[in-house]
């Protein structure tokens, strides 16, 4: 499934017959459907109600569901994340929005110590069915304190599920699954993807459409190298694959969809076919998603099929600068992926 700009739908209502949808509208639809389906579901966060969402992801929901189900909070992340976790413990199914995941650092104790660990500490007595969602990683020109990718931090912790959708169909199906999951799910969106339209399949139109957490998807078949990525960089990988195909290099592009649990089997199957692995992510290199993938490949059957060491393409190991030229060169570009593939293939 490739992204494209639909002439009729871009910027207007998504519910047209050509069935494309922007990522933000897919997220909106997912929440709308789950709010309707289960009255225990509610949304809280800064500006989610009367402002229609800082990034308009929750547009229209407050008007439809009211104050009880869509709750504007004060700017107190630790407090409202804790309140959301407590509500989940007592029988509700909250969706806790962080305006960006950078602010979740203020609440990270509640996410890890109160949410993630509780089912284990209580030996299966106390479940915490909660979704923490919001934009993660770099945006555009928002500088160092607003651009961090938290995939590796959250994926480190047992007791959490960490999901990172790429396209609109991912967004809808995975968010519905996350809301229906009886466990704490960290749902990492991407602000730059919110306005990107994607074609939606027939089955994704259904109110019961879900995508299972923990399963990656092969977005493009290939034979020479496995490109493994998540979120926005799946687009970059697909674009790089188009360019590389012209030179006779066929890339297999894997969209992880879920960071934890990682679908290692999908990656292994691919690597055993292509014999080359390149991971692509926006986060910093050290102790990151790519590092974990490489370690797991080393420990499994795919290692013996590698014809070259695995390569990681990552964000530059610095706080995010502001100036456009600096910011552009702090994140993986398509040319970096192409370069890394060729180095890995030794061409």
């Amino acid at each position, binding site marked *: 499934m490739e992204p494209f700009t639909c002439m009729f739908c871009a910027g207007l209502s998504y519910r047209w017959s050509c069935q494309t949808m922007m990522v933000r509208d897919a997220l909106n639809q997912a929440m709308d459907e789950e709010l309707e389906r289960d009255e225990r579901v509610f949304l809280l966060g800064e500006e989610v109600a009367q402002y229609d969402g800082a990034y308009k992801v929750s547009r229209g929901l407050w008007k439809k569901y009211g104050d009880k189900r869509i709750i504007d909070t004060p700017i107190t992340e630790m407090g409202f994340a804790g309140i959301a976790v407590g509500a989940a413990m*007592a029988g509700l199914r909250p969706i806790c929005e962080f305006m960006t995941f950078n602010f979740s650092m203020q609440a990270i104790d509640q996410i890890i110590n109160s949410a993630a660990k509780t089912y284990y*500490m209580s030996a299966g007595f106390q479940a915490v*069915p909660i979704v923490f969602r919001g934009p993660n990683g770099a945006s555009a020109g928002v500088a160092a304190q607003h651009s961090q990718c938290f995939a590796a931090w959250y994926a480190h912790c047992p007791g959490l599920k960490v999901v990172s959708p790429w396209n609109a169909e991912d967004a809808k199906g995975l968010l519905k699954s996350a809301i229906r999951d009886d466990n704490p799910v960290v749902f990492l969106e991407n602000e730059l993807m919110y306005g990107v339209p994607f074609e939606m399949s027939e089955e994704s139109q259904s109110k019961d459409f879900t995508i299972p957490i923990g399963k990656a998807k092969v977005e493009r078949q290939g034979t020479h190298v496995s490109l493994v990525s998540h979120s926005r960089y799946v687009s970059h990988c697909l674009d790089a694959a188009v360019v590389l195909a012209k030179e006779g290099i066929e890339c297999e592009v894997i969209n992880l969809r879920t960071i934890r649990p990682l679908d290692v089997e999908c990656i292994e199957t691919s690597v055993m076919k292509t014999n080359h692995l390149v991971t692509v992510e926006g986060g910093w290199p050290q102790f990151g998603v790519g590092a974990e993938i490489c370690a797991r490949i080393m420990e499994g059957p795919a290692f013996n099929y590698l014809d070259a060491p695995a390569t990681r393409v990552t964000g530059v190991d610095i706080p995010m600068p502001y100036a456009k030229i600096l910011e552009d060169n702090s994140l993986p570009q398509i040319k970096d992926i192409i370069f890394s593939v060729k180095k890995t293939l030794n061409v």
Partner: protein
Amino acid sequence: MLQTQLLSNHHFNFGRRGRDSSVGRAGKCDVHRLEEGPPLKAELTREQGLRYYRIMQTVRRMELKADQLYKQKIIRGFCHLYDGQEACAVGIEAAINPSDHLITAYRAHGYTYTRGIAVKEILAELTGRRGGVAKGKGGSMHMYAPHFYGGNGIVGAQVPLGAGIALACQYQGNNQVCVALYGDGAANQGQLFESFNMAALWKLPCIFTCENNQYGMGTSVERASASTDYYKRGDFIPGIRVDGMDVLCVREAFKFAAEHCRSGKGPIVMELKTYRYHGHSMSDPGVSYRTREEIQEVRSKSDPITMLKERMLSNNMASVEEFKEIDIAIRKEVEEAAQYATSDPEPPLEELCNHIFSNDSPLEVRGTNPWARLKSVS
């Protein structure tokens, strides 16, 4: 039946600098932003008195047994004991319903008992056995029961959780309240004030309760808090300061507080003035920051169990023999519980990785090395 003037002849005085900490001058609780406080009189039936006595004494003996087991190295890690503070847990439970909710911090063994868990399951959790209330996986600070949310190790984190539980009560329209407890040390945490703000804004039925035992670990309240009027720290939220050593005072105050919340008036802040005989935890002798004289004075003048017993005896509500019988029965129960806790087997290694996720299909968990592929079920 006893109709009693609360606090008529009890003053709770201590403090090395002679600070007057007496509570309930002439029987009244100190109130903040309230026209009136809890009633000055309370009724105590014989049945209630014996029940409160039995429960407090059970908590007392259970905690002393834990002390013993810890010194024998049968209990390890953290162990924060509640002896001295029994009137708080028992008074609160007497005022609320089992269907109400309660959450506290790590000094939680007393509440685990009052919320319905047997002594043997508590002790077996402390000794890390499979018969423990959390199957040995939680330990001292992580015990749970229906409508009891632990047992929380991170200072202050339980308070927003409590406000969230109250939100769920309001959302579900079930007329229940949540008691969210914290200590004088936690009272300065920012997340408390975040919780106060949201609870007040949304009128959550949350009874925020500071168990002020005068010391946050080794730091006295004067050294930690610019204001030690913890019942006023909710600012715009009404507050009541209560003698936490008098189980009847606690009960009446919490009946008042629960009614306040149930009537839709929003949250309330309670301060219970109490005292712990042990140090902060078993690794703290508890005498480097306070004097033995102080501890002894509280024990002799303000012990919650002694006070209740003497009140009942002096009003001919029960005999010395009856109390002795109760004591003997409790001693036996605690002894048997300790037997169980020391003989029950440890949790099976096969269950090491269970309970990561709720309601999920089995998953594989990486062990200490790549060949260790362990199984986890919900």
